């Protein structure tokens, strides 16, 4: 599912580089990426999703050599194959819950917003306990509810991979476990691969694969 080999990456402005000798995450796996701040966890997600391009090496995601794609093709790949869940949720304050869930469909012409998509969004909202909140604005939701909207938005395009960047970082323990359970449940139901960045070592036993980013290869700061 995810495969990185001999990857060397550094930001154009310098100061940070990430080297990955070899990394493989099988399809349908539930993986956690750990490491101290600044170790390159987010950069790893960016490489896998094609937001960043490595200087050398191979990055293969869902059977596609992402590093060889043009910027336009990487964007198209990203929005159709990958779902993102961010730490700050990053919902749009001016869109209601339903529109936030359907947001990816407003951003790329390869995604067509039709009746079946709307029906899928309603189903997802129902599964995630958001059915009665569809016309609410994010400001009217609790943290846990916002996180559930963010999960629904990541899943609505039926991606093959979910990349979650510390999605439970701002939640209280009870809500955190609830959100994780929902995320796991939805990924398992759809056989979707999950790669989640976390600082919380207490959660690691729930993952089938742990990736220590610091151990992937020599990192220079």
């Amino acid at each position, binding site marked *: 599912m995810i495969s990185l080999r001999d990857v060397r990456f550094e930001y154009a402005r310098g100061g940070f580089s990430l080297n990955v000798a070899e990394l493989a995450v099988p399809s349908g796996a539930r993986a956690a990426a750990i490491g101290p701040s600044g170790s390159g966890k987010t950069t790893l997600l960016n490489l896998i999703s094609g937001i960043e391009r490595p200087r050398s090496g191979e990055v293969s995601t869902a059977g596609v050599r992402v590093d060889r794609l043009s910027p336009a093709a990487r964007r198209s790949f990203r929005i159709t194959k990958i779902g*993102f869940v*961010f730490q700050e949720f*990053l919902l749009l304050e001016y869109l209601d819950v339903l529109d936030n869930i359907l947001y990816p469909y*407003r*951003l*790329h012409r390869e995604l067509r917003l039709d009746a079946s998509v709307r029906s899928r969004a309603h189903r997802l909202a129902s599964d995630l306990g958001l059915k009665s909140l569809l016309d609410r604005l994010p400001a009217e939701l609790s943290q846990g509810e916002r996180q559930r909207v963010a999960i629904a938005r990541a899943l609505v395009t039926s991606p093959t991979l979910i990349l979650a960047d510390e999605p439970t970082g701002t939640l209280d323990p009870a809500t955190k476990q609830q959100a994780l359970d929902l995320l796991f449940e939805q990924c398992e139901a759809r056989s979707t691969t999950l790669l989640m960045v976390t600082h919380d070592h207490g959660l690691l036993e729930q993952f089938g694969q742990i990736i220590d980013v610091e151990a992937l290869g020599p990192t220079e700061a």
Partner: protein
Amino acid sequence: MRDSIYLAVRYLRHHRAKTLLLVLSLSVFLGLPLVMRAMSRATQQSLLSRAEATPLLLGKKGSSLDLVVEALYFQLKGVEPITEADVDAIHGTGLALGIPIRTGLMARGFPLVGTSLDYFPFRKLRIAEGRGLAMMGDCVLGSAVSETLGLGSGDALLTSPSTLFDLAGVYPLKLHVVGVLEPAHGPDDEAVFVDVKTAWVAEGLGHGHQDLARAGPDVVLKRQEGTVTANAKLVQYNEITESNVDSFHFHGDPSTYPVSAAIAVPHDEKASILLRGRFVDAPTRQLVRPAQVVDSLNKQIFRFERVLQIVMWTVGLATAVMFVLVMVLSWRLRAEELRTMTRLGCSRWKVAQIMGAEIALMVGASILTAGVFGILMAQYGEAWLQNLILRGS
């Protein structure tokens, strides 16, 4: 594109106060200079066309602009009057037709204009309802007066007292509305026309009362050598009717009675030149060409308008800068949102499209608002601006 517009609409609706403020600012920026320019042009043209339709105007020496404004546009400027004899003198030259204009009184907020029957064909005014002036006490209403006051032929209209708290002053005269003029789209629409003698009666220069020859001793104080002195019991008429019209009279020589101005309509160009020649050195009179007077007024307005345009464009520029600043600040505040878009897979072009749609919608709404504003101003603004110019002149 549909999705970009959808997102833009949702964003603008969510921030409706900011959007409204920007749209209004842009509307003013876009609309006001153009509307003011168009209105000013239309007003100047309207003023000039009436002045051009009035060949010559005779009045007391003084401000020619005040004379034209009062006699042509019926805006009271308190011009010193000439006399009926001056109107007769114009006739007497055999060079022109003289039409008296007596202004100064009002009737329920509209100017009362005393004139002669020649005025109506001269201004090409036609009766829409009723008939023209036939006897003293009749009045003909301009179309706007009739519409505003809801009066038509058969109704009555009181002149406004010139000295409201002076009990010894002139009492209002009850006028009979005998006709309403067709709309002329000018000052004639907003005037009440009477015969010049009726205007004098309304001013208190002529009056009617019960027959003193038949008055009893309770009214008559003294009869001596054909002069009768009556007390305050004498019945004074405040309405001219067929039965009392003969009792109305003027003391003294009516040729000395005041008129505000006289329109002189020369028979031809040669007559016009000759007539103007006769008044070149007149010590107390001036014979002006209203078109020249209004033209000089228009030149002043044009100069003022240019200054106003510079001010407006400066304000407009400041508004545009403010708009750009607000948009740039807004985008900076939305940096996280824009970053999320690109991380999800949205192209920079699409981001630009969404932002562009927001600007386009606001500019579109501003143009629409400016258009509606322009239409409203075209509908009502010309009269308002004309009024403003004439009152301020």
